């Protein structure tokens, strides 16, 4: 049952499994059909399910995302693919003011079984306009939920769960993850969709990360372990809601917390993590919570500058060393 496959393949299988089981599931977006999806996620689905269930759209992000909202009101379970999160800036009204608010404004009359899939983050030299991270924006929207799978297994499990949910869910992928590999057991019972996972436990400090940054955090943890620093790595898996219990428990044990995010630091996703955790773990913390985050600069095109504008494994390692070193502690 378990097999090593790509992240995109895991998503593709989740789509296929769900679509085979329920004909109210449709998917739409630019090039999801004939061409099979920019990152191959919808490969083969149009041939199997026809063009009404797998719909290639014009470049009209606001309206085709809104189409998903309207179709969900009639009981379909649309999976809208926005080619990349950068284009979601055009669809932000449909997401924030329609999908997230209709269930509430209608007094609960209209559930919103809508999944919006899109990759976010900095890929490789796509320039400032194509390097958007938008998680902080979508976290701040009550009524919306957001998951951020880092592994093929989670991609598979969480996509199936998202499709089953009657709430609108942002399913945030990452361009650099599509071609990462991992074992996927399709028969495994998936953990609850918003539960965080301890990917590694270590007594000295807690590192909280999500999506692509989890891989870097784990790499850093290896290296740190060889230096004698034992770092717990929490993969959030979900940014809205956040599984605070898992985070709080760990930080209360390790007394040190490092947050790693690709989002720009200023008002990024990590800000909420730090703000709430300092509140809930204040008396357990030996040092202030630290953030390793993207620089507050539009992403430079030049490859070296681009790489330096978001966290690298070495940035995590250095921050971790500083955090657990005895230097710098006052009073």
């Amino acid at each position, binding site marked *: 049952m378990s097999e090593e496959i790509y992240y995109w393949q895991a998503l593709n299988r989740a789509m296929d499994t769900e679509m085979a089981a329920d004909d109210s599931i449709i998917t739409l977006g630019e090039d999801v059909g004939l061409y099979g999806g920019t990152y191959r996620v919808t490969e083969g689905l149009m041939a199997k399910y026809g063009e009404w269930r797998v719909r290639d759209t014009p470049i009209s992000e606001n309206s085709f995302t809104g189409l998903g909202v309207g179709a969900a009101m009639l009981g379909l379970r649309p999976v809208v693919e926005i080619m990349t999160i950068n284009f979601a800036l055009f669809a932000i009204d449909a997401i924030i003011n329609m999908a997230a608010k209709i269930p509430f404004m209608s007094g*609960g*009359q209209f559930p919103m079984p809508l999944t919006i899939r899109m990759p976010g983050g900095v890929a490789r030299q796509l320039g400032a306009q194509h390097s958007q991270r938008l998680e902080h924006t979508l976290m701040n929207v009550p009524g919306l939920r957001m998951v951020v799978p880092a592994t093929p297994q989670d991609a598979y499990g969480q996509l199936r769960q998202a499709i089953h949910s009657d709430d609108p869910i942002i399913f945030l992928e990452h361009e650099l993850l599509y071609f990462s590999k991992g074992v996927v057991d399709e028969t495994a019972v998936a*953990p609850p969709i918003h539960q965080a996972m301890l990917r590694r436990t270590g007594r000295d400090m807690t590192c909280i990360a999500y999506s692509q940054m989890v891989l870097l955090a784990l790499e850093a943890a290896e290296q740190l372990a060889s230096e004698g620093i034992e770092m717990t790595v929490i993969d959030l898996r979900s940014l809205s809601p956040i599984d605070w219990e898992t985070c709080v428990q760990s930080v209360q044990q390790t007394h040190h917390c490092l947050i790693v995010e690709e989002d720009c630091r200023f008002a990024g996703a990590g800000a909420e993590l730090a703000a709430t955790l300092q509140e809930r773990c204040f008396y357990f913390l030996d040092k202030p919570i630290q953030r390793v985050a993207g620089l507050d600069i539009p992403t430079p095109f030049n490859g070296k500058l681009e790489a330096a504008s978001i966290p690298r494994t070495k940035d995590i390692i250095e921050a971790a060393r500083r955090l657990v070193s005895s230097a710098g502690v006052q009073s």
Partner: protein
Amino acid sequence: MDKWHMSRMLRDMLRARAFEEATAQGYAQGKIAGFLHLYPGEEAVAVGVLHAAEPGDYVVSTYREHVHALVRGIPAQEIMAELHGKKTGISKGMGGSMHLFDASRRFLGGYAIVGETYPIALGAAYAVAYRRLPEAVICFFGDGAVNQGTFHESLNMAALWKLPILFVCENNHYQIGTEIHRHSAITEVYKRACGYGIPAEKVDGMDVLSVHAAAQKALERVRSGDGPQFLELDAYRANDPIAAAIHEAESGYPNPAAMAAAGPDCISLFSAHCCREKHLDETDIERMRQEVQTEIDAAVRFAEESAEPDMETAWSILHANRRYETLMESPE
């Protein structure tokens, strides 16, 4: 059209007017708050179009939707209670004047952000077309709303996939204080549909019978798979003293007195027609007026006497859809 239908239409126009008059009064008394967008003068549009609709059709509207909701069949008291923010309102007091929804009557909502009705209608029609049902989606919008990008995007997709939508432009010639020739390069709105190959027609929106006939024809085409249709209904704010006073309340709109030149009010027009054709006489109409006033008065009482929702209700509505889901804790 027979007498029975005519009198139903006239009754709905009178209900609509009485409802909005009561609304304006509630607003003046401070019992209704928020933005209030009223309909007097345009009743022939809502009544003409929605009397041509089937129960299986869907309706999508804007913030100026009280009358669409009423004519669609939502009880006056549930709309009025919603305007008062009460728990007995159609949206439990969470939506308000600009956000009336009714799943059972296929009323897909009032939207306060100009340009949102198109994609909602598009999605509903997509679902209908996918299921191959003989249902239509009616999408209302104003003349100012046609300049929002979603208009263009949605009309293109509707035409491309031949979706069952009747696009209904309520052209009252103003986008708040901006007259149509100052917001649109082309002031004959129906011509906008040419860029998508959607059949379009301009109809006198002050004449409920013309509106009804045009809507019926267009809806038949929509239901029989001919793809989207487009109606521009030329309408004006009421040339009617009470309605005029109502509109004064709504900031930014042109002085209704200036609108007088536009011609007689749609209700007087239709009443006169019914009398001329001997379907009804003045007494019948007066009786109708009293009946609808009784209904609306009761609706206002109901709204005023209803309880307010509490925060727990609000939270439970927000989380209503999570009922069967395990979000974080593993099930034991």
